[in-house]
């Protein structure tokens, strides 16, 4: 149970990651989450729905990290929260080893949650300021009383703290005595306390300073590969996601527009939105002249309360035609493993013509 992290995986990040097994341990199908608008004061009369997540399918295999990227409001955090049943989904299924999380009753859910743990974005808000670090890490064992006999708690707390790069002595301290990066480590130790099979990480490094981010990224990577934990890694930072993930799913306005192995999606994006998103990320590299292939999208993301018909990206897409407004493109495999929801996907050789390029001159 107490794996020694220091001997596992000497150079995380450089070695080729083990190819995850084929059978998905986690299979999400047709996930929908709509929030009613209005209600309450207006006598429960709903004025429509915010379509936060509208039909999302993906699978995660054992030991695999799936990166979920997209901009604010695209629904990525809602996906995570419904999978944890922190929000009730409107429709769909989430099969965990074949068992539907969305249909589980309270007792079943308690057992499932033991195997799925979450790491939150804000290391300041997600730790109880009145509890000592040791109590925070031991809390899962209070809830799941059969996991670890109480006499072993102290030893295990020490081991967990060491595995995230802190000292066993730190168990006696309070969260305010730690820096942001250290608090995120405490959150990770708590998530590991139940030996989960899946970690759901919602923007785990976004709140951290640049010089501290890499420490936590390396730690997550080490934990993920040495414990062979599957991971749903949600972030808006495309560089961090590329670094962490085996596969990546790109969301736009509540739907997945492209999903596939991380290298092929980054190198040859097939969906116009993926390409625009990747091109917008500022680069340190001086070899390519800065912004040379940047696609500047026009306008803004439409309201999820009233999304465009057909393809939701069509209002900002330079390839859109009338078909895009009429029919919603299904997520189809255009090459083994890389699926795209687009009627006119980009060819790998597509370099954007100057007529195509929405390069604003203003």
């Amino acid at each position, binding site marked *: 149970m107490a794996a020694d992290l220091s001997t596992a995986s000497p*150079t*995380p*990040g*450089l070695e080729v990651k083990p190819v995850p097994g084929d059978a998905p341990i986690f299979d999400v199908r047709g996930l929908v989450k709509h929030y009613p608008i209005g209600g309450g004061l207006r006598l429960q009369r709903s004025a429509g729905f915010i379509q936060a997540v509208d039909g999302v399918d993906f699978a995660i295999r054992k030991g695999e990290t799936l990166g979920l990227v997209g*901009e*604010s409001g695209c629904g990525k955090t809602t996906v995570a929260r419904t999978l944890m049943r922190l929000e009730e989904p409107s429709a769909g299924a989430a099969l965990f080893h074949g068992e539907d999380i969305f249909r589980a009753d309270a007792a079943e859910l308690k057992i499932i949650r033991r195997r799925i743990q979450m790491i939150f974005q804000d290391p300041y808000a997600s730790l109880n300021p009145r509890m000592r670090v040791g109590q925070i890490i031991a809390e899962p064992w209070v809830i799941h009383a059969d996991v670890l006999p109480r006499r072993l708690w102290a030893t295990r707390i020490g081991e967990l703290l060491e595995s995230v790069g802190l000292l066993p002595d730190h168990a006696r301290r309070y969260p305010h005595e730690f*820096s942001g*990066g*250290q608090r995120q480590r405490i959150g990770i130790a708590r998530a590991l306390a139940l030996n989960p099979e899946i970690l759901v990480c919602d923007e785990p490094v976004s709140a951290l*300073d*640049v*010089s*501290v*981010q*890499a*420490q936590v*990224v*390396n730690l997550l990577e080490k934990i993920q590969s040495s414990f062979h934990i599957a991971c749903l890694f949600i972030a*808006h*930072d*495309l*560089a*961090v996601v*590329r*670094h962490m993930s085996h596969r990546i799913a790109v969301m736009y306005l509540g739907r997945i527009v492209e999903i596939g192995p991380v*290298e092929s999606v*980054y190198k040859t994006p097939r969906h116009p939105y993926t390409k*625009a*998103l*990747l*091109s*917008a*990320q*500022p*680069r*340190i*590299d*001086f070899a*390519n002249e*800065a*912004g040379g292939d*940047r696609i*500047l*999208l026009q306008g*803004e993301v439409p309201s999820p309360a009233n999304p465009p018909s057909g393809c939701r990206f069509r209002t900002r897409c330079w390839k859109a035609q009338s078909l895009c407004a009429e029919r919603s493109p299904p997520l189809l495999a255009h090459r083994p493993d890389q699926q795209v929801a687009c009627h006119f996907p980009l060819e790998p050789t597509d370099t954007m013509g100057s007529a195509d390029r929405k390069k*604003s*001159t*203003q």
Partner: protein
Amino acid sequence: MRAPMPDAAPPLLEVTDLRVEFRSGREIVRAINGATFSVRRGETAAVLGESGSGKSVTAAAIMRLLASPPAHITGGSIRFDGAEVLGASMSEWRKRCGVDIGMVFQDALASLNPVFSVGWQIAEPFRAHGILHGKAALERAEELLGRVGIPEPRQRARDYPHQFSGGMRQRVMIAMAIALDPKLLIADEPTTALDVTVQAQIMDLLLGLQRERHMAMVLITHDLGVVAEVADHVAVMYGGRVVESGPVRDVLSRPAHPYTLALLESVPRADIGKQKLNPIVGSPPDMANLPTGCSFHPRCRMATDECRASLPPRVETAPGHHAECFRAREVFGGR
């Protein structure tokens, strides 16, 4: 954008050895202990640093936004357009800099007044400086809204800040900052709260305006990618000091300070596949209790006893490229 400016052109803004401390009770937080950088017309100078490094305090000191107490400027000089403005009286400063320096803040929602229409707010600088009034000021505000890329500016000028998205609010702030056609624009993390595709739109707008008006720009940011793409010069801040500065290409491709080098090795990059991340150990320093000598020494791979004992000199490793490190030449030569 990156066209070299003739060296003869004097800097528009010249900050030299600026020092600011915050005093509360017995505690003294030395937020800036020596910041030196400059920017010429038509150029962009980036001030790069993590939270607490002193980059925003530097901007606030230039703009006279520091409340005293608790803030005290204890040394250094700020020269704008050829004259010292640090010791100037407030009315003198307003006359010299009020019109000629514009500022864009990170949090547009907090910086706009929620109870006035955006048109009224953009027209405010014209009224405040007695340039235009009433309808004429509002019409000018509508023009500016159009210039910063807000569709249907005449209608939108009557809307209130909450009716705009994050990116649009940032455009409104930019319209206000450029209203008086300033010579210098200070942008404090202008895109940090925005999504990457919106960030690209806003940076494009800022650079377009800068080119069109031949403004100087000081860009305060923590994002190495943004610095690489838009700045001509960069000043890297750590522990309240500018520890390295120079032309952006030189500094980022051949850093001379171990902190800059370590920062570059610790960020994952979207343009490269899997690479090993080399994190910087420890945490940023406590500004109320700075380490002795070089404040980076507890986290530095190359630190020696000398670094713990005394402040390193400012070494010029290449023309215009400075680093405050005993081993600057070694770091610079090592790559």
